[in-house]
C-alpha cells in the first residue's frame, strides 16, 4: 500500500522529524576530582530556542563552552548534522568588549571574520540598528550601560551570521527593561532562523523564550522536553524541586 492511500489528500501527512542540529554524546568533564559533567547527552532541534536550566554547578555554562569548542571534554563528543555551516556565535555572561568605540568593536569582529572593508560600513550600520545602538556608535564600548553592552556583545556575535548562537546567562546582571530589550533581540534573531541555546536562571525568561528545556543537575541531563510540558508537569523530582526553588545543589 502506498503512502497516498494511508494519508489521503487533505489529511496532514506526518512529517519526518528534522534531523537534529547537533548531538552531544556522553560528555564527561572532571576537574579536581569532581565530575562536573557525568555523561551529558542530548540532541538539539534545528530551530528555535533551547534553554539549559539547572542550579548552580549543574554544568550548564561548561556544556555551552564545550559546544562552542572553547573547552574540550574529557570524553564524549559533539556532532553537528552534515549540512551545518560551522558558524557559531557566543554571548558571555559578562560582556568582554574591546577598549574601543562601539563601531570599532563591530569593525574588529568583521575584520576577524575577514569581511572586506567595502562591505563593513553597511554591515555595521545594520548591526547597530538591529541592536538599537546607532545613537552611541562612536561612544566608548565600556562606557555603555550594562544592557547596551550586552546588546553590543550580541551584535558582535551576529557578525559571523551564526547558525547556532549560544547565550550564557546574558541578562543575569540587567534590569527588567534591559532584559526585555535583550529578549526582543533574541527573539528577532531566532525568528531569522538561528538556533539559540540559552543558559538562564530566570524561569520566567525560560517560559517566555524557550521552545524546549534541557534540565541539568550535578552534571547529568534529567529532562529534555518542550517548555510547556516541562513547566506544566516536570517529571523528575529534581526538576520539580528546582522549579519550586527547593532544590539544593
Amino acid at each position, binding site marked *: 500500500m502506498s503512502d497516498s492511500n494511508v494519508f489521503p489528500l487533505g489529511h496532514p501527512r506526518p512529517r519526518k522529524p528534522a534531523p537534529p542540529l547537533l548531538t552531544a554524546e556522553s560528555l564527561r568533564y572532571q576537574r579536581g576530582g569532581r565530575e562536573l559533567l557525568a555523561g551529558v547527552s542530548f540532541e538539539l532541534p534545528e530551530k528555535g530556542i533551547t534553554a539549559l536550566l539547572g542550579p548552580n554547578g549543574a554544568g550548564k555554562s561548561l556544556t555551552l*563552552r564545550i559546544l*562552542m*569548542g*572553547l573547552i574540550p571534554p574529557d570524553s564524549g563528543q559533539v556532532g553537528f548534522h552534515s549540512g551545518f555551516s560551522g558558524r*557559531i*556565535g*557566543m554571548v*558571555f555572561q559578562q560582556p*568582554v568588549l*574591546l*577598549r*574601543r*568605540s562601539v563601531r570599532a568593536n563591530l569593525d*574588529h*569582529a568583521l*575584520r*576577524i*571574520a575577514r569581511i572586506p572593508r567595502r562591505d563593513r560600513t553597511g554591515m555595521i550600520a545594520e548591526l547597530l540598528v538591529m541592536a538599537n545602538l546607532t545613537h552611541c556608535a562612536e*561612544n*566608548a*564600548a*565600556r*562606557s555603555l550601560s550594562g544592557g547596551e553592552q550586552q546588546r553590543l556583545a550580541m551584535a*558582535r*556575535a551576529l*557578525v*559571523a551570521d551564526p547558525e547556532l548562537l549560544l547565550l550564557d546567562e546574558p541578562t543575569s546582571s540587567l534590569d527588567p527593561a534591559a532584559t526585555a530589550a535583550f529578549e526582543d533581540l533574541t527573539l528577532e534573531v531566532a525568528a531569522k532562523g538561528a538556533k539559540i541555546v540559552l543558559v538562564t536562571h530566570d524561569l520566567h525568561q525560560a517560559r517566555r523564550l524557550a521552545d524546549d528545556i534541557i534540565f541539568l543537575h550535578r552534571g547529568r541531563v534529567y529532562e529534555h522536553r518542550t517548555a510547556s510540558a516541562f513547566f506544566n508537569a516536570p517529571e523528575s523530582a529534581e526538576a520539580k524541586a528546582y522549579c519550586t526553588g527547593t532544590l539544593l545543589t
Partner: protein
Amino acid sequence: MPLEGQIVEIVLLSLKVSLSAVVLSALVGIPLGALLAVGRFRGQSVLIVLVNASMGLPPVVVGLGLYLLFSRSGPLGVLQLLYTPAAMIIAQTILVTPIIASFSQQVFSDLHHEYDEMLRAMKASRWQTMATLIHDARHSLITALLAGLGRALSEIGAVMIVGGNIAHATRVMTTAIALETSKGNLYLAVTLGLILLALSGVINVVMILLRSRLERLAHV
C-alpha cells in the same frame, strides 16, 4: 668648540643613541612579548626565563661581547662598527629589548586572560589575537618604553666600551660625566648630570601625557 656647543652635541648624541635603541627594542620586544604571552610553542618557558633573566644583563659584559665581535679581528670586524654610534645603539638595544619584552609580556598576558574566550569564540587566529592585544594595550606599553628609555639613558658600561667615549664622535652624557668627574671638571659633570635628570623628567612627563591621551582615545 665652545662649552655650550659641546654640551648640545653630547646631549643630542645621547638622545639619538638612546631613542634609536628604544625604537629598535620596541620593534623587537613588543611582538616578542605578545608571542610569549599568546604563543604556544616548544621552548616557550625557557625563552620566558631567558628574557626575564636578560633584564639584568651586566652592561659591561654586553659591551665586552660586542667589542669582541666588532673588533678588527672579530667575526664582525669587517663592518667597522666599533667606536661608532651604531655600535652604541646595538649595545643599548641588546640591553633594552629584554626589558620591553618582559614588561610587554606581562601587559599582554593580563589582557589575553581577559580577551581569550571572546577572541577564541570569534575564531581569531593567533596573529589576529596578537594584533588585537597590541592595539588594545598600546597605552600600557608606554610604561615598558619608559622603563627601556630609563635603562638606555642611564647606561654607561656598554657604550663606554663599544663607543670609546670619543669627543665629537661617540661621547654621550653618561660617559662624559664619568670622564669629566675623573678629570676634576665638576662644573661640566654636574651640568651634564642636571641636564640628564631634566631630560629624563621631561621625557617621563611627555610619555605620561601621551599615555593618558592614548587611554582617552582607546576608551579605557
